[in-house]
């Protein structure tokens, strides 16, 4: 009842919201205004030219952010990143600039710059769940799962019940074989987004990991019905078929899984087992070798990562 009250409290401004101390630099303002007009007229090249001048000659971070935005819309990713780097030189502690760099790095799968930027952001904005989430995702991308779990858990604490955070956390748990932690996490994620194929597939992996092969088979099949090339679901189904000694079926789905996620060593390992059971030792050896190569590649990418979480003496 009380809550239904809508207050119409019209409070007037006590002072001008715009700082009155100094007039804006006309050149900068004029350049930005002209760039805005150029965008409205569809002349993006002219807009970019004007914004670049404002950024370069007038040190306008606002202009550089607008320029990066236009460049991204035009799929000029490398140029956008260069623009943002210039913006960072002018405003190294600006949240807008840092978050733009982090997101662009993540989108371009540049894990190290994303992680470095997001580590700073989680220090500057410790209560912002979004940056912990993005850091977790970046760390997952780099293969540093323990650190990813820490970041994602923090994100989930700061803002519980976010489906993407829960999914990412569930995936990280699965990758660390922490299936009993993964299961309830993914269950919650699925409650929030029942149609998510990725969540169903990840849940099936957690179920397989906890030994519930019936549930794993059911959920993997659900995911494959919606997305036949889903790597995780095909991997899980392959593992279930392997356990059921249905080797040819296991081989077929594991080959799909390997093709869908060519960087992952997991399907290669399972394929080496399946081929061994099928008596094809040459194929088994080949997949074992591929497994080892992919594992090494993953470890190398992890080693290249800024070792921010290393423990002395280890």
């Amino acid at each position, binding site marked *: *009842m*009380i*809550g*239904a*009250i*809508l*207050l*119409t*409290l019209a*409070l*007037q*401004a*006590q*002072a*001008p*919201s*715009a*700082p009155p*101390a*100094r*007039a*804006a*630099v006309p050149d900068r*303002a004029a350049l930005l205004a002209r760039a805005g007009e150029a965008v409205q007229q569809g002349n993006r090249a002219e807009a970019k030219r004007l914004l670049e001048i404002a950024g370069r000659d007038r*040190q*306008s*971070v*606002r202009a550089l*952010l607008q320029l990066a935005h236009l460049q991204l819309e035009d799929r000029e990713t490398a140029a956008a990143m260069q623009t943002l780097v210039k*913006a960072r030189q*002018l*405003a*190294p*502690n*600006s*949240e*807008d*600039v*840092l978050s733009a760099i982090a997101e662009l790095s993540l989108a371009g799968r540049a894990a190290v710059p994303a992680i470095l930027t997001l580590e*700073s952001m989680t*220090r*500057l*904005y*410790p*209560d912002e*769940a979004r940056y912990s989430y993005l850091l977790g995702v970046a760390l997952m991308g780099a293969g540093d799962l323990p650190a990813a779990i820490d970041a994602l*858990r*923090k994100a989930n*604490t*700061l*803002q*519980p*019940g*976010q489906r993407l955070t829960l999914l990412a956390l569930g995936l990280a748990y699965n990758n660390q074989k922490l299936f009993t932690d993964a299961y309830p996490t993914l269950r919650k994620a699925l409650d929030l987004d029942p149609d998510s194929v990725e969540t169903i597939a990840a849940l099936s992996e957690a179920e397989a990991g906890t030994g519930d092969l019936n549930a794993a088979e059911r959920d993997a099949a659900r995911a494959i019905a919606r997305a036949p090339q889903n790597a995780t679901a095909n991997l899980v189904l392959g593992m279930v078929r392997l356990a059921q000694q249905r080797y040819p079926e296991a081989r077929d789905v594991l080959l799909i899984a390997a093709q869908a996620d060519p960087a992952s060593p997991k399907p290669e390992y399972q394929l080496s087992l399946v081929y061994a059971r099928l008596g094809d030792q040459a194929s088994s050896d080949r997949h074992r070798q591929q497994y080892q190569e992919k594992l090494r590649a993953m470890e190398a990418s992890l080693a290249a990562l*800024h070792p*921010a979480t*290393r*423990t*002395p*003496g280890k």
Partner: protein
Amino acid sequence: MLRVRRLAIALPFLLGAAAPRASAQQPPDPLAPVTVAMAAAERALADDERQIAESRYRDALYAGWMVVGATASADGRFKDARDAFSHASTAIVDSGDALQSLAMVDLRLDDGEAAVKILTKLVAAHPRDAALHRLLAQALVAARQPEEAVQILVEAHGTAPDDMETAFALATGYLRVNKMDAAHALFEQLAAARPRAETYVLIGRAYRDAGRYEEARVALRKALTMNPRVRHAHYYLGTAAVMQEGVVRVEEAIGEFQKELAIEPGDPAASLLLGMAFVEAHRDREALPFLKEVAARPGAGTREYQYLGRCELALGNPQGAVDAFRKALATAPAVPTESQLGNLHYQLAQALRAAGDADAATSEFAIAAASAADRADTRRDTLERYLTEDGDAPGASMPAFSLDAGATMRLTPEERATLVQRVRTALARAYMNLGIMQAQESQFARASDLLRSAADLDPSLPRLQYSLGVACFNAQQFGPAAAALERALVDDPGNADARRMLALASLNTQAFARAAELLKADPETARNPTLQYAYGVALVHSGQAAQAESLFSSLLSTHADNPELNVLLGEAHAEQGDFDGAVAALQRAITLKPDVADANRTLGVIYMKQGKLADAAASLRAELKSHPDDVVARYTLATVLEMNGSQGEAIDELSRVLQARPADADARYLMGKILLERGSAADAVEHLEIAARLAPRDANVHYQLGQAYQKLGRGAEAKKEFDRVQELKAERRGGSE
């Protein structure tokens, strides 16, 4: 709870930083970096370059907190320094210096683990920085991880084999972990690379610190063979004699210290030790000139005065002893060990008795008696103890690092205090303007945090309290909003907006009498039905039934079958303890409109108060069915479920509360408490730490957090929380007296 939409209020920035005037004659102003950054931020604001403004304000925060940290370090207030460097480290991206300073302060506070955590990351980010590696090694030693320290130094030595400091630190590390052969080999390499007497002095000192006295003597004598006037060799030989066998070899030590002073007359460390050694050898007359000399130097400390006191007492000058012991107590470190203090009081008492001041002596004896064990330890308060426990200035077990306080070190304590006050005001301005920037972006929770930081530093900044009130109000933090708005009205009693907002904030914090008082005086109430209604609520809940009845009579006469009004009536009955009347009105409201807001929630609260937990849960669930966004109902349901033992369900509900309101301190607290009870101490800590930030004066939060730390074996942090509980309780007792 009265829900209000956000208030659109323009908050003005606090401008006015002047750029420092350059002057070739004037010494550099430690505040200059802060002022420059503030001025740049304000220029950027004027140019509508908000990103640059934010960045520069953050630069100002960094520079300001570094100055605060440096002054605190210079004053020996290391806890304050830690706090300041911690703020600095979270102000900007490139905060390596702040983090390094923080680690150094942690080391000074004997918190090696904290230093290790910071330095590990710094070393990872700067893998070729040998000095950082050495500092990390030092932290690892302090954290009782000598093997890991050696490993870090091995890495650093491998990266920079020609770095003599790292090689020396590694050799010292080897000594510490008893890898004598490796240490000898490295020392030989060092001596070969730098075949000088000074090198052997360093090696001798390292052996002495490791308790390898024979090797120490060999190295130190070798140094003296190479250069009979090399400094510190005799000094270390003297200290080695006492460290090995105590005062038994004090005469040998005296001889070495005298030789040291013959090389370097007036050397403070050697003069002090010679004075102390003479006292231990009962050669007090010879000790006196040395102790008087060191006690007269600027920066003389407890130890100098204490030995001077002992010497004066032994020479029959009790008044001189009393003076010296009093100075010893006055200069005792900020966190003295119990034994040192107890012993000082005991010695002062003896001097006072000898001087004939029996009353003062009795008082000092009483203080000393409080630590009787320390008196028993008096005999150990000797030169040997000083050398083995406190370390001597030039020969500490690890090379002493310097916390460079820069220009602030050259200031007097009074000048530093003035400087800090100026910095605090500048910091407050930076926080305030950052807060206003966030408020303008509708980031009210963040805005309120920043404005609160400003208020903590300088609550008297113009319009700060009003800005804080507006931000908190819009972030639905009504308690802090009310407090800030009350303060704002003290400065500006005519601010009608502040009064109205305060009335609504008071309503939401159940300060109904205050809300009624403010709304009664507000001319807008008579014209605005919403405010009139709010006034009615305030009257009902503040025991002003007659006025409320009159108000509601007029409202009911036109709206008898209004379900919302019946809910209000129900709330009025409930407020007066008339639960039957309340239930009747609320049920009538539900009959009139099954999904009427707040009716089932209020019923739930009534049932909870009556202990009918199942009915309470059912009513609250009914409220949530029609109003799933009612966070208060959901939190209340979580409370009922927790009381009912359904912790799992309570956690689910609290998760949803926190999803909607991550900054809900009560929900964080309850979540943490439940998780702790369920054995998930690590998860509990995460929630309770946030709760402690949101409600820093809630003793219950600190208590639960302390419990959680304790379960995780984090004893030091647990103690800090329990201490905070005691402080808060003491404050509350003080407040109630």
